């Protein structure tokens, strides 16, 4: 049986990837179009990028989003990693079923419901909505993703190494810090990246939980997009897409380099 790609395979792959990438490609092209119209090519121009950097509302929103993303991704990584360790290493403990249910549920929960419920919590606690509440909400939203990524890594990691460390006199905390953590670090970092991008991207939960003065970039984009296609938004989108593409390419190059450099296979 030959393992090559048949014509049918080629056609379905080409069509499928064209479907996935054409809209993104078009946005990038439009962002460099001097004309406001999507069907008219008015020549290559960077004017929308220029006006973008003078748009204080958008720049302010980008700054808010960045701060929320950095803080919530870091918190979510710590909490999600602790949850993953508890789920794979602590055996049975009281309320484990509830704990594992709560750890995964945010993955499949409709965002509208998460946003609404968190808002009710903040109202009940009489916390003013703003930067703090969005950050707390995003931490809760994204920690489940960290848990899943880290847990799948922990599941394949050889436990006997940790046990050996503990036999040699390490406390469990020390064994975790100097044996387990270095080994699961790629997964922890991947979890952080995932949490960060999810936080940058979130519109629904942020809309429910943010207040005046804490408008995030997706909220700002959304309110402008509702009024129709805007070239400045195309420019923002292109910058975001470019940042993600560069990040992913660096990541894959780094992991390729790591596997090529260190011949010792990761456990």
């Amino acid at each position, binding site marked *: 049986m030959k393992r090559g790609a048949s014509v049918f395979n080629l056609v379905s792959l080409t069509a*499928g990837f064209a479907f996935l990438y054409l809209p993104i490609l078009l946005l990038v092209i439009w962002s460099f179009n001097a004309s406001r119209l999507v*069907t008219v090519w008015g020549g290559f121009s960077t004017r929308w990028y220029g006006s973008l950097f003078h748009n204080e509302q958008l720049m302010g929103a980008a700054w808010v989003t960045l701060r929320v993303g950095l803080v919530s991704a870091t918190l979510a990584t710590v909490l999600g990693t602790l*949850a993953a360790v508890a789920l794979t290493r602590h055996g049975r403990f009281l309320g484990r079923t509830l704990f594992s249910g709560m750890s995964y549920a945010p993955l499949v929960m*409709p*965002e509208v419901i998460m946003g*609404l419920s968190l808002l*009710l919590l903040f109202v009940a606690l009489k916390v003013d909505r703003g930067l703090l509440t969005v950050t707390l909400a995003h931490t809760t939203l994204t920690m489940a993703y960290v848990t899943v990524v880290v847990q799948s890594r922990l599941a394949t990691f050889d436990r006997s190494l940790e046990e050996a460390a503990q036999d040699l006199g390490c406390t469990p905390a020390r064994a975790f810090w100097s044996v387990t953590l270095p080994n699961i670090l790629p997964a922890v970092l991947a979890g952080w990246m995932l949490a960060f991008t999810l936080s940058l991207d979130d519109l629904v939960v942020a809309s*429910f939980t943010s207040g005046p003065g804490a408008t995030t970039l*997706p909220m700002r984009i959304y309110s402008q997009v509702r009024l129709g296609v805007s070239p400045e938004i195309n420019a923002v989108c292109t910058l975001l897409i470019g940042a993600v593409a560069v990040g992913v390419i660096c990541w894959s190059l780094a992991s390729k380099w790591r596997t090529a450099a260190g011949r010792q296979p990761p456990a």
Partner: protein
Amino acid sequence: MKASWPRPSALIPYLWLAIFFALPFLLVFRLSLSDSALSIPPYAPQIDWSGGLAGFRRFLAGLDFDTYGRLVSDHLYIKAYISSLSFAAQGTLFALLIGYPMAYGMARCRPQTRNLLLMLVILPFWTSFLIRVYAWVGILKPEGLLNAGLGLLGLPNIDLLYTPAAVQIGLVYSYLPFMVLPLYAVLEKQDHTLLEAAADLGSPPWKSFWQVTFPLSIPGVVAGCLLCFIPMVGEFVIPDLLGGPGSLMIGRSIWMEFFANRDWPFASAVAVALLIMLVPPIVLYQRQQVRALEAGR
């Protein structure tokens, strides 16, 4: 081993989830039983802690199912639930029809090509969801790219933006990677000697596909379908940006009830009903994941 108390390191995420995940749900549920009111809190009834147990009993007696009664009697909401389910079911089906050949084609490529294609499937997931949906506005709007293309071919224009078809396109487009990834994971692992055996025994390729490849890929099909279906039902951004007033979806109803009508108790009731609807597919998915995890060990 006897169940023990959770260790301190587990207690931190545990408490966090209890406060920021479980407690808010109880609040939604409690609010959904309050009296509908077109204002902001406090809502009747309130728990009167000074009254002790009697106060609590008074509070319980004050709760009612009025909001749910309204939900059931209002055709608009029943319609929105049904149309959300049908949008999600159709979207899942189309995603499967497009995603299966893609995953199959990817699994047939050489390993290096496979890794590149896999990255290309994952990459859109990292770029903003909102942006990708918004890109379709420029394509589908009346003076957009699609109609310009049709005009060049001498075909009549079609207005897709703000129609149910546009919502459907947006759903399939946004969730296609969720369908391709689990399918690819299953197809890539498949033992090719099985197909060789089938061919040796005289089975034509198409027959081998339906009798060998497809049945073996069913776990991936189920996982992919659930991964698409569950979030599609509660989708807000896609029907809001691409759909018109005719494309009712429940996620959008909750949003409108909350932000436009400011009826928080009713919005909560709509949310609780949505959640109840999603419980069966979520349980199915989790059970399947556990089974896959155990099979992989």
